[in-house]
Structures are given as structure tokens and as C-alpha cells.
């Protein structure tokens, strides 16, 4: 479906940046469930949904902290090992790619692949980004952000007064 790929707002606009939640969930995908993982249905916005144990563990998040002087991305990559991940920047885009070949878990064999692109804000140098993965599988990408002193350019306009009383349209 192509309609989903059309952005709803221009990525660098104020509207987009102000409306972005700092942390989103549901980044872990293709997780096998067993019937015991499903809990009693609850009503959510008028629909019944079944809460799942794998959603309750505060995992599978993506978090973007963008302050005045630093920029940091936290991404839960616990489904991948560090050598299955790669991070690169293209202009002001930060691309995190992960793919693992077939691997066995308790339900069967699975292989996964994802690519996530973040948009670096103004003032972040892509060459200064540092990436680390913690032991519990959370990738941290951070860089300092230059504070640009944005002084307003003020131009006082001079008002000409016509003393002769001519009317100009």
C-alpha cells in the first residue's frame, strides 16, 4: 500500500517535531505467542484487545531524546546481536539496519530484518555520532548538538513622510 508511505507532515517542520512522542513501543516484531501469553481481554477505545505478556515488559521501544546540546536515540534491539546490526548516516538520516539469519527459538525457526531511519535534527554532526549496545540489548546512539545562537535579524524600516501632501496610491 502506497498511501501509508506518504508522510503526513514534512519531517523537519515544527508541527512534526512538537507532536512526536519521545518513546514509542511495538518495535519487536514477529514474536511467537503461546495461548498462555494472552491475558483477559480489556476494552480499549471501544474495542476489545488482549493484553500480551510480551507487551507488558517495557521492551521493544524506540526513544528519541533531543535536547539543546545533545541528541540521543535509544532503540531496543534485543532480537539481534551486535554483529547483526549496522548503523550508518546518509546526509541527515540515521539508518539502523538489522538482519539475522534463520535461528531457532522455542516455537520454530525465524529470520528477521528491519531498517529504521531517524532524521537528525539541525546542529547534529553525523560524524560525531557514537553507538553502543548495552548487555540487555538496547542500542544507544548519541551525539552532541551544537547550540546555534539564533539572533534575530532586525531591520528597522525608515518611514518617509511626504510633506507636500500628495496622495499616492
Amino acid at each position, binding site marked *: *500500500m502506497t498511501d*501509508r*508511505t*506518504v*508522510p*503526513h507532515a514534512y*519531517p523537519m517542520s515544527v508541527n512534526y517535531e512538537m507532536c*512526536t*512522542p519521545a518513546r*514509542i513501543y*511495538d518495535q519487536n*516484531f*514477529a*514474536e*511467537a*505467542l*503461546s*495461548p*498462555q*501469553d*494472552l*491475558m*483477559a*481481554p480489556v476494552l480499549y477505545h471501544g*474495542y*476489545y*484487545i*488482549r493484553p*500480551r505478556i*510480551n507487551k507488558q515488559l517495557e521492551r521493544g521501544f*524506540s526513544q*528519541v531524546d533531543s535536547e539543546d546540546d545533545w541528541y540521543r536515540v535509544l532503540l531496543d534491539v534485543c532480537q539481534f546481536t551486535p554483529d547483526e546490526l549496522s548503523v550508518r548516516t546518509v546526509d541527515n*538520516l540515521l539508518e539502523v539496519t538489522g538482519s539475522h539469519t*534463520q535461528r531457532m527459538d522455542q*516455537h*520454530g*525457526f*525465524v*529470520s*528477521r*530484518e*528491519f*531498517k*529504521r*531511519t*531517524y*532524521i537528525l535534527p539541525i546542529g547534529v554532526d553525523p560524524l560525531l555520532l557514537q553507538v553502543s549496545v548495552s548487555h540487555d540489548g538496547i542500542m544507544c546512539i548519541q551525539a552532541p548538538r551544537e547550540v546555534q545562537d539564533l539572533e534575530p535579524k532586525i531591520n528597522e524600516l525608515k518611514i518617509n513622510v511626504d510633506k507636500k501632501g500628495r496622495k499616492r496610491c
Partner: protein
Amino acid sequence: MAGQGVTISHGISCPVRHKVHFDKTDPEKCKETHHLFALPGPGIGELKLDSKSSTGITGSDKDLGDPLFRILLDVTQFKPEDILIQVFEGWLLVRGQHGTRMDEHGFVSRSFTRQYQLPDHQMQSGDLTAMLSHDGILVVETKERWWAASD
């Protein structure tokens, strides 16, 4: 309309142009399997016994009982058209792939392949049913059920 087949009428009477589609089909085939909407959680055994003894389900006995094989998969991020289910030589392959799409933090694309070993090597894709529920759980199970004969 008489003699041309069965017309399905709902509580809200559907327009004639919709009734045409149901004229030549078997209403049993149009029936949805609602037992899939209420997937078993912990303690489903007691629930099933209670409902049988007290209310006495009058539906066909085929709906009761556990399937021979059932998998659940969390595919919240995928849409039904992104998911492909194949059966190959006793293996069940579930593939999901969605192209680049925008979300709150940028762009993301994902794909996965999952394989499960089927209990029967001769099993065909016609023996399986799949359903994707609105909260993102994909269920693939066999049409055959354990308790079909015992009832």
C-alpha cells in the same frame, strides 16, 4: 428471489445490491468462525466445560475442541496483505514484509520469515485456516479438531 438460493438477512436489512452476492452461495460458508475471536487464555478448559453444561451450545460440534496444530504469532506491525502463508513439505512458512512506512520517529521497514514444523508431513494448505485478529494476532490452525468425533 424465491427458489434462487438463500438470502441472508441481518438485523439491518442489507441493500438489494448486496443480497445479490449472497444469492448463490451457501450461507454456511459465509459464517465466520467466531471461536477464533475469543482465543483461549489461561484456564480455558474450565470455561469450555461451563458453557457446555449450562447453556448447551447448539452449534455444530466441529467448532468445539482443540485443533491438531495451532500457532499464534504477534504481527501487530503488519497488515493482512503483507503476510504470506505457505505450506511446503511438512513445514509451515509465514512471511511478513512491509515496505518503508512512516511512523513517529522516522521511517521503518521490516520483514520476517517464520517456519514451523507441521505434525503431518502430508498436510496441505487447504487443511489450515488462518485468521488475523484486529489486535494483531495471527492464528494458523488445522481445520481438524481433536474432539470432533467424541461429541
